[in-house]
């Protein structure tokens, strides 16, 4: 194609389209460049510097997520300078905050002290909630980095648990800004921003309010975007990915039909996340779809047929309840005609369920008195 131009990455020539970043070109050609702060579908900020690459003839390494490809550029994605820079970046991140997973230099003496401090702050003896599902941990393993010098890490901002859905753990925040992008550029809820400067830098909601008192609508987009254990769903805080099975499905609330992944552990739904690879929602959900699943396991779910006798319900077997239903419907049909019966099918149940109800009404009851409450 005419608007395509060549660039050289790790010794191979690739064509690119005007406007592509170095990261775009690399990804299109299956070259892995690690990223942390970059969030798909949003403008890159170049904050974390994990994605740095070396460009021939340029003294400074550049961040590939926000540097446009230029014709003739010669790029190295894993040169020794690049790797050294990434290692230092990762080390710095690991060395601030409560990253109490094993990647963090367990050989040092103050390790025990440090663990106890984190446990106290977490109010839990578990390792970090993101253990096993953490971008930073992955990178630390990949580049064989461990943190150091954690004797003087003080937790500046206490953990925020004051809302029903999201735990904000500022001690584990690496200030990558993905949550800010998710909130402002994907959901456009504009609830959170970077606040304060220098060492005091923090993600703030409004003028540093609690989330529950801010413009936050608890869509959880930020939780899904957070690469570490700084934003965690309250109900699934320590559910580890290897303990859960993922099942793809469709949200059952509104007509948008967002695609979801159930995370299932011991026959219980512990978490729902948005499916990122498919329309219509590409990972986004709202508060109902993401957090509104408790009803599935509610104690008062119906578990057995019920028959009313003398004004009270009693439990019944399926056979008894179905026989009674069939008998009464047949009697009424015979006595008063098919059109004396009405069926309400449902905008909540599946197409297959609706079809069965429709067929039953028309083919068995022999009436067209079927409708649902969609009008309502």
């Amino acid at each position, binding site marked *: 194609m005419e608007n395509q131009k060549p660039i050289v990455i790790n010794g191979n020539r690739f064509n690119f389209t005007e406007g592509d970043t170095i990261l775009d070109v690399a990804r299109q050609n299956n070259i892995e460049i690690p990223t942390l702060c970059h969030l798909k579908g949003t403008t890159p900020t170049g904050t974390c510097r994990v994605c740095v690459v070396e460009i021939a003839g340029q003294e400074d390494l550049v961040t590939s997520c926000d540097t446009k490809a230029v014709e003739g550029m010669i790029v190295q994605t894993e040169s020794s300078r690049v790797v050294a820079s990434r290692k230092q970046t990762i080390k710095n991140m690991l060395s601030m905050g409560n990253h109490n997973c094993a990647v963090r230099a367990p050989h040092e003496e103050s390790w025990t002290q440090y663990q106890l401090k984190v446990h106290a702050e977490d109010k839990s003896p578990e390792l970090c909630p993101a253990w096993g599902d953490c971008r930073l941990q992955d990178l630390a393993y990949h580049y064989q980095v461990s943190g150091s010098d954690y004797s003087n890490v003080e937790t500046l901002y206490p953990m925020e648990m004051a809302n029903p859905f999201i735990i904000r753990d500022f001690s584990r925040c690496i200030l990558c800004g993905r949550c800010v992008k998710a909130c402002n550029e994907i959901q456009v809820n504009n609830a959170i921003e970077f606040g304060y400067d220098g060492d005091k830098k923090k993600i703030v909601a409004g003028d540093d309010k609690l989330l529950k008192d801010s413009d936050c609508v608890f869509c959880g987009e930020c939780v899904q975007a957070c690469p570490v254990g700084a934003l965690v769903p309250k109900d699934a805080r320590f559910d580890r990915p290897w303990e859960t099975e993922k099942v793809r499905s469709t949200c059952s609330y509104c007509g948008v*039909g967002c695609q979801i992944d159930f995370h299932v552990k011991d026959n219980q739904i512990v978490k729902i996340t948005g499916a990122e690879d498919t329309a219509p929602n590409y990972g986004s959900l709202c508060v109902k779809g993401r957090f509104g699943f408790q009803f599935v396991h509610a104690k008062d779910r119906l578990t057995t047929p019920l028959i009313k006798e003398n004004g009270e319900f009693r439990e019944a077997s399926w056979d008894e309840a179905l026989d009674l239903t069939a008998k009464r419907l047949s009697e009424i049909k015979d006595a008063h005609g098919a059109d004396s019966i009405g069926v309400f099918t449902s905008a909540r149940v599946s197409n297959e369920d609706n079809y069965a109800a429709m067929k039953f009404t028309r083919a068995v009851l022999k009436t067209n008195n079927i409708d649902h409450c969609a009008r309502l």
Partner: protein
Amino acid sequence: MTNTIGDIGDADVIMVVGSNTTENHPVLSTVVKRAVKYKNAKLLVVDPRQIKLTKFADLWLRPNLGSDVAWINGLMHVIIAENLHDKAFIEKRTNDFEGLKSMVEKFTPDYVEKITGIAAQQIIDAARLYANAGASAILYCMGITQHTTGTDNVKSLANLSMLCGNLGIPGGGVNPLRGQNNVQGACDMGGLPNVYTGYQPVTDAAVRKKMEDAWGITGLPEKNGLTVTKMVPMAHDGDIKAFYIIGENPLVSDPDLNHAEKSFANLDFLVVQDIFVTETGKMADVILPATCFAEKDGTFTNTERRVQRIRKAVDAPGDAWDDWKITSEIAKRMGYPMAYKNAQEIFEEIREVTPSYAGVTYERIERQGLHWPCPSQEHPGTPILHTRQFTRGKGVFHAIDYIAPAETVDDEYPLYLTTGRVLYHYHTGTMTRRTDGLNERAPESFVEISAKDAEKFGVEDGSPINVASRRGQITVRATISEQAVSGTVFIPFHFAEAAANRLTNAALDPVSNIPEFKVCAIKLSSAA
């Protein structure tokens, strides 16, 4: 929807009518907000409440309740008067333009201002904004349909869209946002009194013959059946003797609840199939326990006509069964064998009898859903409807006059009430009110009232208030809010213990039989 959700992002102008999108269709609202904030789309919001989207809007029209036909005709008046309509599209693709033209003639901006309360200049601005764009998408929801003139409102929006050639193009269209997850599917599956699957009419002998052959029976009923809103009063009068209710809770969602309760009490037999004992279930003779969406395989069809899979993730509690299985077992006991191995087998039968679903298979939608119509396995699905022609050949303009809402305020009932949803709850609350966190965010019902009305009627923020209409009374807490417009209060309908539908009006739109939920006259008094 004529277009897709993603397609809204390509619109130059988005007009949102009677839809509190950020609360009722939150993820879809992100597409709208992104288009406005990052793609320079213009947003036109028409809503009596100051909903959140108005913050993103270039223009916000605030019509009096029930005056939709008037402002839409007003827009069309201006568009035609200023020669902004799409003459080529009208010529080639539509009929009856002249009728529309003479109807909207009297709807001058000044005349419309008198009916709607929208300033004449805003009518002109809105018309220019809508008509001057390349592609303008219309999104609408219950705020437009839940009126005695709901069908007129919907047709009027179609008129407007055709007038500017916005149908059948990317970023355009007329897009109803379905409130409940599978409204589209329930309609597609023939869960309506007048059609089989895929909107095949029950009054068409050839269609009936086809269904009889497919089902191996004879004697399918020839007359249209009754809508819910007709059946309930008939139960009251004793002409309907039994209801079989699947997954619905009409005793919270129905209009004029007090009347509906009497109807249900009058039945000879009521069987309710659900996942909880609902308000409706309490009145049943038999309750049958069903599985919920997380416990079964099947499909839902979303508001953009996309057929998508649901999958069993956990086992059902106790002895709950899939809805289709329960229905099949009743059928069997009434002498007709309906034996399906699984949901997929039912879906295969749906494909066989439904041309618009014929090309959709579980295999094809394994990773991503398909938009119907999809007539064959080779067909890619239809994201945008009417690209070349309308279903019935040419689009027809409907000349529609303005009719005042069924109930108006008077000295005794001086305020209008409108009902709707809030972000944290869903429909009758059966599901969301069993999630602690959602209850914590939105624990109880409320009446939203403007500061001006609050002062006028002596209402204090947070105080309990009796709200009464000609049909009933409820007690709710007052919330003084900027969202409310003076003269109109808002109450969400999720809360059974203070059901807004004790107040609402059961007067029906003559065609769609949708009740007038959105307009009724009420009075307030202190309950303290």
